[in-house]
């Protein structure tokens, strides 16, 4: 053979429309796994910098976790957490986190079943079931997560 042609990556991610269930499950599982790791480290960073016990002055009206109105002194932990929880974007991200975690757990169980050789012929259906369940749980969680910020 004198020469041949390598089409490189054209066949891979540019063909996402042709992916089958198992491939989507794999991509989503990777994505959600790494999102959870990302969240875990952010979470550790936030908490570990908020536990000094130092008192800070805040406007009670701004924080959902502080009673009353006007300026008052609260521990840094309350101020940090309250400050974050008062932001709509954080509440929305929390819904996202729940969705990511629920999908990862459900699909994780699916993958464990696949590893045990159980129900491999229904692997596409169990993926769709994971997606649907994730959707239902996520939607059902919205009132709880968004309580107090416009809802």
């Amino acid at each position, binding site marked *: *053979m*004198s*020469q*041949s*042609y*390598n*089409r490189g990556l*054209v*066949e*891979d991610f540019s*063909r996402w*429309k*042709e992916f*089958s*269930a*198992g*491939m989507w*499950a*794999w991509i989503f599982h990777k994505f959600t796994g790494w999102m959870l790791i990302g969240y875990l480290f952010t979470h550790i960073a936030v908490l570990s910098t908020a536990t000094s016990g130092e008192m800070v002055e805040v406007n009670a009206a701004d924080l959902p976790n502080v009673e009353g109105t006007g300026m008052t002194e609260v521990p840094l932990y309350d101020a940090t957490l309250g400050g974050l929880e008062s932001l709509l974007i954080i509440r929305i991200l929390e819904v996202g986190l729940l969705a990511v975690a629920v999908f990862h757990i459900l699909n994780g169980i699916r*993958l464990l079943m*696949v*590893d*045990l*050789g159980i129900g*491999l*012929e229904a*692997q*596409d259906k169990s993926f769709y079931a994971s997606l649907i369940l994730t959707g239902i749980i996520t939607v059902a969680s919205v009132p709880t997560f968004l309580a107090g910020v416009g809802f």
Partner: protein
Amino acid sequence: MSTQQPEPESQEAPTDPEFQGAESSVDEAERSGGDIDQTAADPTDLEGETVLIKVFRYDPEVEAKQEPRFDDFHVPFTKGMTALDAVIYARDQYDSSLTFRHSCRQAVCGSDAFFINGKQRLACKTQIAELEQPIRIEPLPHQEVVKDLVVDMDHFYDQMHAVEPYFQNEETPAIEDLEEQRQSRENREKIKMSTRCIWCGACMSSCNIAAGDNEYLGPAAINKAYRFAMDDREPEEIKEHRLRIVEQEHGVWRCQTQFSCTEVCPKDIPLTEHIQELKREAVKKNLKFW
């Protein structure tokens, strides 16, 4: 029979509907390296229902085809027509340089796995009626293209041979057992599906992991290993030897259970299931708590 054949009518005037596609004379233009009419046959010239196939073209030896492109062919539709029938028609009627492998036309030889409408399929087992038009026919992804739909299968065959795809025994059986090595019905059932592989390479081509790791044995080779490892007629030591091959770094553990191979296998072999079972066998062999 006389050797003096009358000139085919179509050479004079393209009135014969069968030959109207040939007017673009792709071969002629190609040889001169000039511009090529990339569309063969005007569908309005053909009687009855036609299908449009878009076929991947590439030929490093022809200047005008060094840059890969798609050629359109309008092929008359007949009931029961397969994708292989369509490319055969295009080759025989429009462009004799269109190159692809095929032989048995009945899903036995495994030579005509193409990438049809975004999926690895055996062309001879793919009904045109079930495909969305226009039908895109490409060579198998993740293998180098030699010409048009012909890909280099060497690597695939190397991986198949790496798992020693033949029956083995430690010693020659006793003379009275030589005639026939019987297998139990149950054991035959167990390996039944795995024996069906026709070495078409569709699974390997569909596998994202195989694409990224050239040393990965790939679904077909692992399935072949399964076929022998699970065969009771081979002694235990040989099975262990086989497991040592598949449990290597680029063996079963590369599989990420994406199910792409199982999805495309034209012989419906549960490839992922077999890979997973070998993973469990490998774990059982190495982890001994009991």
